[in-house]
């Protein structure tokens, strides 16, 4: 989970640099990245008890 956080931090720093060069607002990109980060962390934390396969099978039922 810490590795994931570090990866997202590096990605965010690199993309901020890209957006600054393009003179774009960082806010919407930051929100989307933050949401994706939380989603990743939650999925990774519950990976032993919850799998996407279970979700698809539940939807099928």
């Amino acid at each position, binding site marked *: 989970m810490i590795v*994931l956080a570090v*990866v*997202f931090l590096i*990605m965010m720093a*690199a*993309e901020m640099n*890209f*957006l600054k060069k*393009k003179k*774009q607002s960082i806010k*919407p*990109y930051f929100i*989307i*990245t933050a949401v*994706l*980060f939380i*989603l*990743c962390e939650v*999925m*990774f934390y*519950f*990976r*032993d008890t*919850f*799998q*996407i*396969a*279970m979700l*698809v*099978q539940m*939807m*099928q039922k």
Partner: protein
Amino acid sequence: MKVITQSQLMKYFAVHVFATIIAIFIGFVMNKGGFNAPLAVLLGAVLGLMITFIAFRLAIRRPDEHFVDYGKAILSKWVHYPLLLIIVINNIVVISINLWELQDFLTQFYLIRTPSWLVVSACCVCIAYTARFGIKSVFRTAEGVFFLAVFGMLLIPLLIGQNMQWFMIRGFVTQFDFSQAWDAGVFLCSIFGEMTLLIFIIPYVQHAQKSMKSILFSTITIVVIVIVHASTLILTLGPEMAKNLNFPELEVIRLIKSGSFLETFDPALIALWLLSIFVKLSFNIFIVAHVVSHVFKLKHYKPIVFPITALACVSTICLAYSHSQYNTLMNGGMVNLILFAESIPLIYFVVDSIKRYFTNKGMGEQL
């Protein structure tokens, strides 16, 4: 803006579909279809082409606009955005399935004892970079891979010829079973139906009105290659053995002895498969980034490519706990979810056609 030529479009979709079927799902096709696999390929291709045709008819009505933007004018935004969410989820799940199979394959045969998360991460880095370079680079890569891949794919049956048991050829006629072919056909339709993603890239395509012709050519190419491969597998291994192997194609390739220079032929072909799958997955990542950036009205899609790829990477790790769970998923609801997501343009097409009919009728009455 118009950066994709018709030739690139044809080559890309050919690589997209036949790499998926041959490199990943040929075992499933053998399992479901048996001797009827070639018929199933034809059925799947026809059904997939029908879905793609409807998506194309919808997209070509507004060739310079993005589906994400005009979709809310057809259905209201309250329906449009949830449907887009289903498309995004479907793409992420498709990427996860392909990556799961890929890491399973690599950790079983080539990267033994390597942690699966590391294999998935390494693949994701390649995919993310290709996607970040843009749609043009994805299609150019596919253009480069196409001839190599087709050459490699057609070379296998030629080199394997001496191992084929030709007496089994009568099984194609005597073991005819339409219900078996239908099962495999529906499964293959979900893969051929991925060509509906065309709807998202129509504004980038030159001479977009000719796109269906290119799709037809790529479908013919795919059908020929997949039928040749499925028949080769059946004639070499037999349907029973082919359906019980996880990667029957690899076993067939390993029968090829190309002399002392290269002990077996598989590393070269595996490299081609990987390249083709990477191109396919980067396109799926691009589509997700494209949809998200248009929904949130972002000027650039590039900054969200890496986070989306990270999500795909984590969802691959969380896809299934074991092989049995994965097989249950693939034999259960997965195909239905994919087919539903691919049929979404059909809803838009029907509603748009009804709206156009009543608008034209109203205008006619006013005149």
